[in-house]
């Protein structure tokens, strides 16, 4: 992933609207050549941060550096970044070729240079031969590709994308996720990508920056964020999870009346949440080592294609009034029978998969 694309340093960036904090002391280092995703729910400040990078929003204070150059006061058109907007914003009075050639024209390139770079960009996004189409004659997916080609035709070192796939249907979106990632890998670019779709973020990113209420909540690789969320918001937002209230009393962790084992060193006394990923649970036979066992009754058993979702009501006497979700992959458990509603069940969760968040 080492490349000579520009890195981005964001330092203490704060943006307020009235007394509302859209961004609060955000500091973030985007490495050279990295694919970094800003992930957060609607209204969390992702677009605001991207607009600060693009130069359309001036932060109240803080610094943004591309490489070693401070750019906070630099106007957008001098920043030399590629940008893809959510609604594509193609220019309807220009055809595909003119749209893609526009940044090159702005850079004073000769006709033949423009033509050459447009042809190259078209082939990168797999739209060869569509150069003469009008913008209105394109499908949603094709528009998206044109917008992308237009943003990379001048070989920017930094590419910013704001939910570029959200208008596409699920299948196309999943194809494009992989294509976008391949594109990033084949060009020398530092990419900052915005999405509120956690699965998309997990699929595409080198690292994910989770943002909520204008604050950076966690920064890490998809694996780190998924397996080690550092608070309940992230545990809940990323992937599926059941969050069960737990207590720590003098280095021991209790769920209801039962003591459980956790993967990390014990926390200070107080109230926490136990994070349980549905796919980490397994049907237990009582012989496993280093495993927390939960007994209960199957409340619902739902076929969902590739997996079977079980909702389990835990034994109130030992664990208190709560239920958890479990996912059994279909097909890999041949010979095992699928638990049905009303059945008594005992499920296990390895100690290494059990952790608490605040």
């Amino acid at each position: 992933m080492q490349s000579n694309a520009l890195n981005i340093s964001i330092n203490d960036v704060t943006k307020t609207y009235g007394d509302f904090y859209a961004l609060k002391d955000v500091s973030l280092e985007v490495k050279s050549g990295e694919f970094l995703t800003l992930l957060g729910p609607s209204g969390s400040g992702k677009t605001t941060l991207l607009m600060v990078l693009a130069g359309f929003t001036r932060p109240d204070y803080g610094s943004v550096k591309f490489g070693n150059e401070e750019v906070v006061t630099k106007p957008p058109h001098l920043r030399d970044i590629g940008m893809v907007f959510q609604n594509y914003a193609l220019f309807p009075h220009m055809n595909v070729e003119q749209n893609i050639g526009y940044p090159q024209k702005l850079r004073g390139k000769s006709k033949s240079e423009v033509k050459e770079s447009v042809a190259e960009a078209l082939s990168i996004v797999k739209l060869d031969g569509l150069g003469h189409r009008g913008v209105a004659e394109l499908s949603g997916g094709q528009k998206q590709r044109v917008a992308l080609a237009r943003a990379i035709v001048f070989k920017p070192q930094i590419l910013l994308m704001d939910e570029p796939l959200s208008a596409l249907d699920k299948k196309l979106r999943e194809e494009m996720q992989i294509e976008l990632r391949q594109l990033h890998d084949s060009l020398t670019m530092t990419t900052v990508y915005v999405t509120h779709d956690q699965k998309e973020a997990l699929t595409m990113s080198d690292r994910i920056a989770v943002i909520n209420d204008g604050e950076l909540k966690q920064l890490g690789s998809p694996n780190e964020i998924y397996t080690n969320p550092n608070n309940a918001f992230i545990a809940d937002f990323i992937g599926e999870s059941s969050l069960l209230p737990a207590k720590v009393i003098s280095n021991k962790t209790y769920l209801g009346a039962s003591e459980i084992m956790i993967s990390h060193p014990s926390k200070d006394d107080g109230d926490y949440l136990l994070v349980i990923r549905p796919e980490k649970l397994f049907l237990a036979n009582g012989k496993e080592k280093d495993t927390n066992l939960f007994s209960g009754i199957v409340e619902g058993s739902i076929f969902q294609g590739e997996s079977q979702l079980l909702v389990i009501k835990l034994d109130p006497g030992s664990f208190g009034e709560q239920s958890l979700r479990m996912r059994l992959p279909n097909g890999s458990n041949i010979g095992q029978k699928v638990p049905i509603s009303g059945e008594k069940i005992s499920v296990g969760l390895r100690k290494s998969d059990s952790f608490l968040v605040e």
Partner: protein
Amino acid sequence: MSFLNRNVSETQIRLKDRLWLYIFSILVLFLLIVPSLVVIPMSFSGSQYLEFPPKSFSLRWYEAYFFSSSDNGMGFNDWMGATWTSIKVAVLTIFVATPIGTMAAYGLSNSSARVRGILFPIMISPMAVPIILVAIGLFYFFVQFKMVNSITGLVLGHSLVAMPLVLIIVLSALRNYDMNQEKVARSLGASRLRAFFEITLPQIKFSIISACLISFLTSFDEVIISLFVSGGDNSTITRAMFLALRDQIDPTIAAISTVLIIISSGLLLLTQLFGDKKD
């Protein structure tokens, strides 16, 4: 009369059920147009006076218009001179009102709802105030700057009333325009000014053309401000007609009116054509 049973709407209303509506509408349109059209036959009259219907026909009043002499003793230049003044002022009004109105519309559509709510009423206030007040105000204002009876004063006065119309036309075009496109252009390397001229302007050009035509018409048809701030060799045609009507009923007026109707409705038709085009 089987055609009376033809359906004229999706809900299967027959022509004969709707006939009264069509007749009524035609009547209303007729009443709207006729008063202006009466002057047309009158302008071809051979008589000394304005009369309707004309008893004899001639082109003498057109002759009087097109070949008028300048010593008519009525306090304005000749008819043709006044016509040229009007055209000159109207064209100059386009060049003052359209850019200012367009810039105002651009500014408003890029500002917050609160700012827009305050500025918009102020900007269109020349439309809301009775025009005679505007005219009196302009007169005293221009006296200070020795601009009464000057083309500059007239153009400024007319631009004042044309600008709100330009503002409204361009603002409604910008409402249907996605400002994100300008953002994209700027991110791709265009300065804001360049983004406006290369991306925004081409997409609202038909509205701008409409705005130009409306500016022209507003100035060309305007009487009251002209009465106050124009005079002598810089009289507009509308002012000249007004003065002529006051002193004597001269059928030349009918000939001039006919020409003005043709010019105005021609431009209006053009405006419609451009207005219908999707920006």
